[in-house]
């Protein structure tokens, strides 16, 4: 974390290799500016995403998670994102239900040719998460900077 006022979120972005990852690449080579808040993890398909990946990111201190795959109907493996979409819908609903801040976990569809769209998605996601501030709800409290022995015992 930087000094207060200049805080920016850390967002783990799981991107499908065949679309959003290439979209991010295109945004890069097209010199489209977007906030440097995401840490990209490339996955073979949005269908690869296990809810554990998302929750583990939040436990380990990510302020938000973005999952991005191919537009429905355009999956490299034909139906991977259709299956994923059902999972994501349920997961999103469940996380909201338990009172996790709604915008911490977000999903999008971005194709390989949509560099500009990718940048916009990141902008929007970043704005929402920045508005929420640092994530606290699921972060696992491991003795950190203060190295405080009394706490958490």
């Amino acid at each position, binding site marked *: 974390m930087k000094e207060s006022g200049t805080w920016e979120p850390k967002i783990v972005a799981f991107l499908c290799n065949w679309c959003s990852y290439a979209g991010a690449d295109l945004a890069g080579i097209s010199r489209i500016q977007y906030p440097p808040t995401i840490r990209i993890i490339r996955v073979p398909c949005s269908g690869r995403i296990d*809810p*554990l990946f998302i*929750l*583990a990111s939040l*436990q380990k201190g990510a302020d938000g998670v*973005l999952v991005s795959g191919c537009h*429905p*109907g355009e999956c490299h493996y034909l*139906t991977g994102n*259709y*299956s994923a*979409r*059902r*999972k*994501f*819908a*349920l*997961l*999103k*609903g*469940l*996380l909201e*239900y*338990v*009172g*996790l*801040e*709604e915008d911490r976990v*977000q*999903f*999008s*569809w971005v194709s390989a040719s949509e560099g500009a*769209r990718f940048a*916009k*998605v990141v*902008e*929007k*996601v970043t704005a929402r998460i920045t508005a929420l501030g640092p994530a606290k*709800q*699921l*972060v*696992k*409290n491991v003795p950190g900077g203060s190295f405080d022995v009394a706490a958490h015992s």
Partner: protein
Amino acid sequence: MSQLTHEIREAARKLLRNKQAQLVIGFEEGSLPLRGRPCFIRKEEDVDRLVWTSFSDINVARYLAKRKEKVALVAKGCDSRALVELIKENQVSRDQVIIIGVPCEGMIDRPRIEAEVGHKAIVEVEETENRLTLKGRDFEKAFDRREFLYERCKACDHRNPVLYDVLVGQLVEEKVRESFPDVEAFTALDREKRWAYLAEETGKCIRCYACRNACPLCYCPECFVDTSQPQWVGKSTGLSDTLVFHLVRAFHLAGRCVACGACEQACPMGVDIRKLNRKLVKDVKDLFNYEAGVSLDEASPLATFCATDPDQFTVNP
């Protein structure tokens, strides 16, 4: 002895005698008042251990996976629904099970009854029709059993077995389709309140995994909380790890949970585990129009999809 007990015993006796089944899994009297328990009958002379009471509340479908012999299962509505899912998931083969279906009029909520008598030690229980008499060392109290059913039983709309080979007793009238007033009420709370509630419930959890192990559909040879490489979930009782355990377990049961309540009933600490499951049951119904454990033919909701599935939750710049 109740009529249902009698009929269950006769059905079991016949199946064992004719060698149609090598094993009957049903319920017997527990060792304490207000308790029933699973029992495993292999010999005709043991058949009289079988009973049917207001405490035959364990989901016995849990004991079916990985059996080699031909099994007769005494199944109430929720046991049969779990069995449907197990058959669909190829954990149990339909030919291997003979279902002795029992229409169920709900099971008694033990913790609630115990609270009702002020947590005094109950020494004896008598059950006749709808009347339940509890005796302690210095008290006696009678209840109408229908008022003390588990919440899940009150809301149950599958009291009759959905699948059976032998039916004992008479089918009972089913309630009209269940709505989800509890889920809606919880959703209406402030986000902070919901989180605080879940944090408090999670705080009671001692990670004994009774919920998972009692669940008829938690049959994975290695649970995600037990993997070490990578270790997804820490083993201690902090909020983060414990909540992630419950969230992911609930999620793994999405579209599979038959709302039998085995989890909450097994929980020694009274954690409101079904809170999460109910939400997913509702969403699966609303979003994908699926109800777990009612049909052998319908594909499981997370094993299929539809091009027009809801999409509104995605970010659209």
